[in-house]
């Protein structure tokens, strides 16, 4: 069988199985996970964590790219933030993200799905981009 036909046969067979998985009822899916020795609750938690990690990694990549772009645009002028007073970091992040100059892809991250550590990290990243609540820019 040619390579093209081999791939087509593989892809078609896998697609038929995919359809069968997508067409199953939630109860059937949970039952089949258990039959594989996978506890559905744990599987959902683990998968959600993987998605969270992938989103986080992507955010870090975007931040690094934005930082690099800003460095190029501003000639390496990075303003450090001062010590943060205690307060609502989520509210602070929301204020920072609403400021002009925040890359669209970052502004879309409203902080509601992020951990406290992620929020602190993102505020730090924004500071490195020169986006702070200080008016010294």
């Amino acid at each position, binding site marked *: 069988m040619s390579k093209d036909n081999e791939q087509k046969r593989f*892809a078609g067979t896998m*697609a*038929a199985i*995919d359809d*069968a998985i*997508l067409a199953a009822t939630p109860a059937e899916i949970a039952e089949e996970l258990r039959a594989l020795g996978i506890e559905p609750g744990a599987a959902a938690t683990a998968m959600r964590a993987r998605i969270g990690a*992938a989103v986080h990694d992507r955010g870090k990549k975007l931040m690094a790219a934005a930082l690099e772009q800003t460095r190029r645009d501003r000639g390496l002028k990075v303003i450090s933030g001062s010590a943060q007073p205690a307060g609502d970091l989520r509210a602070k992040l929301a204020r920072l993200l609403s400021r002009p100059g925040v890359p669209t892809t970052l502004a879309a991250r409203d902080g509601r799905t992020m951990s406290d550590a992620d929020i602190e990290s993102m505020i730090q990243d924004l500071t490195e981009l020169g986006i702070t609540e200080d008016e010294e820019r």
Partner: protein
Amino acid sequence: MTNENFSEAVRKTPAGAQKEERPPAETVAAVGEIATEDEVRAQLLALDDDALHRLELGAARYRRMLPRQDVEELVNETLRRALERDRKWRKDQPFMAFLFLSMRSIAWEFLKQNQREVPASQIGANNDDNDDEENDGYLERQPAEVGDPEAAACDVLFVDEIERMFRDDDDVMAVIIGRVEGLSSVETRERFDLTPTAFETAQKRLRRAVLAGKLDDWR
């Protein structure tokens, strides 16, 4: 329907004639509109437990073809490519079908990659991030015949095994052939004269046969 008929049907369908995933008519929206990264991220974060279970099952299904670490990487790579829009989600396509399609494609890449002996020194030799495109470049220069014969035959063996398992089950073979030929569910039912119930029960038999067996059997 016999195994010979199945293979014949595959041969008669020209390569490249396979159609794209087709969404059910009721989900069709702005045809061809590509989702933004924000939309993809929002979809991923909004997946409910049932969708996450299906993703887990979708990946576990490859355990008979791929080494365990590849199966685990399959999900990560699917998520990464979706988020980075290496694979673009057309919004007229159900999101889960899009993820499954990506997973199939990546599994095929992994299978082909496993068929070739890639010296560890070559992987990421000039690239700390072990970037796929770099590896692809190396792999593309390698003859397909080299490598572990057992791994090389894994995809073929798996498909052969399924065909053998269902050689006397016309309905399941119709479900598979319909997909190989790029037919929609409705077209498959019409062509093979299947009732919706017969089609659904055939899908169930296929799913259960493929997923049967504990993960202890992982190769």
